[in-house]
């Protein structure tokens, strides 16, 4: 395992573009902390985001993982190109000739994906802990470490999404086209969702229950947007007569669906690699 990771990390780290993107990703993650400094002071109307409760435990776990997962696209580019480059440089062929098995090849890529996801999760954990202790109104241990399931959801979401990218990289073999395909797939899911919920099942919940099985939709269902959960926003909603009955929890079912997709994507990548002549 160490050998496979060492091989893959050398490939990524020696590549300038991948290195810059990876560093950018982690630097941008730390910028979440800068949200704390957002302050408006308009005479009578004072607005300080950090004091609105977004950094309160345990809400901070939800908020930070949600924001952080938007940035995953940076690493997605690295992962798609690490796969597609192997095809365009012809190095996939050379790696196999040098004595890597096809299984090891996929394993090394997947281990890297897991490593990136773990690293991001640990990073977010540490950063949220620091931010939380600086701004949260509650710092009792039992409250601080409640709702850690958002971190698990974040980890599963990243692994699932990166596995999808890995699969696209193998399928399409060109990084730009693979990223384009990702975008197109996103649009397709959007269109299907629209048709299902407005045309086919306008009055029932069937659309949502079907859509939850789509890869990207299932990944975004893992961490529901946290904004309407903020007390300020919630109060505003009640005032204008909106009842909020949204479920913000991380559901076991969503986790399971994403894990299934991860398995499917990794297996399909392996099958594809195995069947193709190089």
């Amino acid at each position, binding site marked *: 395992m160490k050998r496979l990771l060492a*091989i893959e990390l*050398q490939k990524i780290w*020696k*590549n300038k573009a991948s290195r810059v993107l990876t560093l950018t990703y982690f630097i941008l993650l730390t910028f979440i902390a800068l949200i704390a400094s957002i302050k408006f002071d308009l005479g009578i109307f004072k607005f300080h985001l950090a004091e609105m409760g977004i950094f309160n435990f345990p809400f901070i776990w939800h908020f930070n993982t949600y924001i952080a997962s938007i940035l995953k696209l940076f690493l997605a580019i690295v992962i798609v190109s690490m796969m597609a480059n192997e095809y365009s440089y012809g190095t996939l062929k050379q790696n*196999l000739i040098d*004595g890597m*098995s096809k299984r*090891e090849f996929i394993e090394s890529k997947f281990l890297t994906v897991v490593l990136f996801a773990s690293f991001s999760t640990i990073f977010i954990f540490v950063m949220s802990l620091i931010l939380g202790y600086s701004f949260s109104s509650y710092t009792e241990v039992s409250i601080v470490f409640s709702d850690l399931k958002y971190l698990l959801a974040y980890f599963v979401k990243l692994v699932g999404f990166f596995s999808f990218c890995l699969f696209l990289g193998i399928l399409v073999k060109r990084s730009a086209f693979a990223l384009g395909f990702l975008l197109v797939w996103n649009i397709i899911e959007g269109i299907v969702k629209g048709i299902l919920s407005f045309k086919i099942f306008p009055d029932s919940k069937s659309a949502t229950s079907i859509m939850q099985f789509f890869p990207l939709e299932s990944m975004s269902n893992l961490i529901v947007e946290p904004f309407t959960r903020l007390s300020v926003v919630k109060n505003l909603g009640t005032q204008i007569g909106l009842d909020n009955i949204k479920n913000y929890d991380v559901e076991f079912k969503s986790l399971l669906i994403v894990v299934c997709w991860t398995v499917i994507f990794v297996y399909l990548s392996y099958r594809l690699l195995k069947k193709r*002549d190089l």
Partner: protein
Amino acid sequence: MQTILSVKNLNKRYGALQALKNVSFEIQKGNVYGILGPNGSGKSTTLGIALNVVNKTSGEYSWFDGTMETHEALKKVGAIIERPNFYPYMTAKENLELVCKIKGINYSKVTEKLELVGLVERQYSKFSTFSLGMKQRLAIASALLNDPEILILDEPTNGLDPQGIHQIRDIIKQIASKGTTILLASHLLDEVEKVCTHVLVLRKGVILYTGLVDGMSANDVFFELQADDNDTLMSVLSVHPAVKNVAIDQGKVLVYLKENLEAKELNRFLFEKNIVLNHLIKRKNSLEEQFLELTEKN
């Protein structure tokens, strides 16, 4: 003698095209093999299958008497396929170190092999800055990193300038002289003739010949003669008991034999018949002539 690679009844189809038909052969330790064949005859496909990058349609192959799995066996094989494939953004040294990681060996041989192919001064240059000849030499260094049991080269001089071709050939000869088993696929016949002891001839996916280079053609020895009057020469020759037939080619009379005949005996015989030769050579067919003969016959 240890069998390094054995291939049995290998078949490969690309859709409607049958690229390989019942290909069988064995590679023994210590020999230098050449795979000959025109472009598209299935040389690269055969090697690709043995090297785990092309899927076979049917048939079998095994490395080292089937004692290990293909990808494990490949760690003891050095192979270069068509064009050198490396990471362009890594330096020569880094690329070789990556190969070491894949093969599970330490970095101790990197410098030694770079020296062998004459790339030590450029070891810190990025692969993308290399000329084709240098890339090919780096590929050879990479194939030799683990001191392989067998070195497989697929068209190693393709696209190189004469100087580059010469350098690669020198390196190959140097490796062959150390007793390393070599399998060289090429459509360049003189290349194979210069280094190989055994040869495999492929055409349209079928093996036409396997065996020693010398044993490729039955009518081994022949004479090449020239006299002032070639017509008389030919008519005189045709009555000699040892002569099978005579042919004329570009002003030279070619004499094929039924039985052994020494050059001096032939010379004396013709002199007694009042024919004086300008030119007398006893020779064998070149590999090119043997190859053409073989591929035309079939």
